[in-house]
């Protein structure tokens, strides 16, 4: 590890953590009821009872934690999947996971499962749909030698098409209220009232980051191809399976809690790779941190730009992420 590289990585982490703090402060303070950052300690010390306390700690803080967790999970999942598939176009939703989750939620809405099981039925059905697809993609490619990347990608894309078609069919035959619910869920939102779910999301996404750090070197070696990675002592097939499961878990979590938030998992790892290189020791952590800040910032814009109405956060991630990415990419002469 050279001094120059250590310095570069430390600087990158400092910038990312600093931006995370700034974005978090903005997310807490900006909204229909503005709160001055300097007042936060006083509001906290005065305790519950005031309207500001309620807005800050019961509405904005849970939403901030969810934004950081889901953004981090999507950024991490994108970096992991692009690493094992060695394909810059892969993102967490390429493998059909979002399609599976959408189908799960559609079925929940149409069969009124939320009436029987409560609000938890939404994320639960999304999670089950996502995991059904994960096991399907994994199971269909399990026997292929070394988990052939193209086979998995094609299976994922096909499952994605099939589930999208079934979702469209269900939307076509569903009633107006159901249709509205489905569309609203698919567009993605960080408005999740269940505190247990928010804590679970935070715990799973941080655990995902910690566990994936054990695969940093293996992912670096996989950039050379499966055989060459094996020559460096890496069990390529096992690494790909483990990383696939971690990335799928992160994606399944994100989709089931917040709906489909496109682009974050594609753009953030790309952006980080362009800025600080493709060494997974820094790429995974930085993609997590940048994803967390990016989604939180997009959520602030989504809930303030046409206030009091709220835009789906997926709309903002797509527009901002896409434009910034094209701008940076053109500056780098297409180097990714």
């Amino acid at each position: 590890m050279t001094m120059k590289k250590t310095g570069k990585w430390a600087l990158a982490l400092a910038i990312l953590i600093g931006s995370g703090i700034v974005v978090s402060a903005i997310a807490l303070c900006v909204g229909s009821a503005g709160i001055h950052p300097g007042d936060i300690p006083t509001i906290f010390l005065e305790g519950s009872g005031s309207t500001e306390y309620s807005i800050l700690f019961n509405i904005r803080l849970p939403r901030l934690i969810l934004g950081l967790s889901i953004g981090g999970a999507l950024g991490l999942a994108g970096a992991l999947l692009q690493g094992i598939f060695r394909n810059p176009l892969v993102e967490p939703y390429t493998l059909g996971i979002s399609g599976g989750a959408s189908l799960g939620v559609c079925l929940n809405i149409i069969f009124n499962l939320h009436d029987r099981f409560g609000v938890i039925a939404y994320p639960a059905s999304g999670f089950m749909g996502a995991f059904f697809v994960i096991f399907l993609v994994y199971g269909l490619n399990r026997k292929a030698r070394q988990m052939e990347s193209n086979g998995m990608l094609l299976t994922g894309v096909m499952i994605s098409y099939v589930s999208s078609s079934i979702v469209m069919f269900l939307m076509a035959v569903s009633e107006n209220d159901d249709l509205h619910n489905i569309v609203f869920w698919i567009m993605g939102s960080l408005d999740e009232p269940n505190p247990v779910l928010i804590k679970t999301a935070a715990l799973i996404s941080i655990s995902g980051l910690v566990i994936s750090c054990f695969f940093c070197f293996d992912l670096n070696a996989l950039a050379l191809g499966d055989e060459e990675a094996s020559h460096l002592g890496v069990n390529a097939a096992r690494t790909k399976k483990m990383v696939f499961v971690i990335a799928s878990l992160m994606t399944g979590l994100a989709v089931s809690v917040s709906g489909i938030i496109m682009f974050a998992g594609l753009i953030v790892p790309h952006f980080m790779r362009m800025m600080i290189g493709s060494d997974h020791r820094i790429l995974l952590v930085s993609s997590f941190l940048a994803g967390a800040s990016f989604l939180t910032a997009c959520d602030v814009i989504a809930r303030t730009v046409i206030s009091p109405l709220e835009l789906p956060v997926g709309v903002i991630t797509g527009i901002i992420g896409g434009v910034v990415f094209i701008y940076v990419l053109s500056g780098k002469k297409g180097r990714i």
Partner: protein
Amino acid sequence: MNPILSLENVALGYSGKRVLSGISFFANPGELISVAGPNGSGKTTLLKAMTKIIKPEKGDIRLYGRNINDMSNKELARKIAVTRQSSQAPAMTVEEYVLLGRLPFLGKYQFFETEKDVSTARKYMELIGISHLHEARVDEISEGERQLASMARALCQEPALLLLDEPTSNLDIARQAGILELIHRLKQTLSIAVIMVIHDLNLASEYSDRMILLSRETGGIYRMGTPVETLTEETVREVYHASVTVSKNPVSGNPRLFINRSGINIPGNPSLRRG
């Protein structure tokens, strides 16, 4: 002398289709063995078997007397390094790429390479002559430079056995000789064994201690021995279906092959074959 690698009656193939059979040979410390033969004769398959990429259908491959199938990938990578014919071009710097050669030596919970790892990588980059490229990206350098970087990475593993798949295929004549001269010296000073798949029979003749000539027809070793024993007009005709004149290199005394144009067939087009 105990051999580093030994193969005993090994048979190899893909999904039931036998490619090679009856392969037996050994590689001693300080020895360079070239594996030659026509396209499709199983040269690369043989290299893949030595690194556990494919398992022998029959026979044993032993490293220091231990069956390689009983060894983990990491254990094997500490003793065997490989350079491939067509390395992928990852988006990383040449130094990062060469440093990957230290991967088998990193601890399970180690997150950073040590100073020794970095100095080892730099030593071999210097030896191979690519120090000036250390900050260049692997996907932006030439094929030849990438081949040199791949060689530096393999040497960085400080292996007991070095397997080279066409190590000179993309290099100019000076670099070809330079790399083989370096390997020749390293194998002696470090007492490592080198097994090299190579198409250029003249280069193989100059630098090999022994040669193995594989035949596609018989699916096995056609001849094995010193370059003088292996490279004859008769063996080249039988194995490659090519007509050559074999003379001696006036300086080294090793066999030197000259193609006889009148005896060459144009592949795949019977109407253009010479009588």
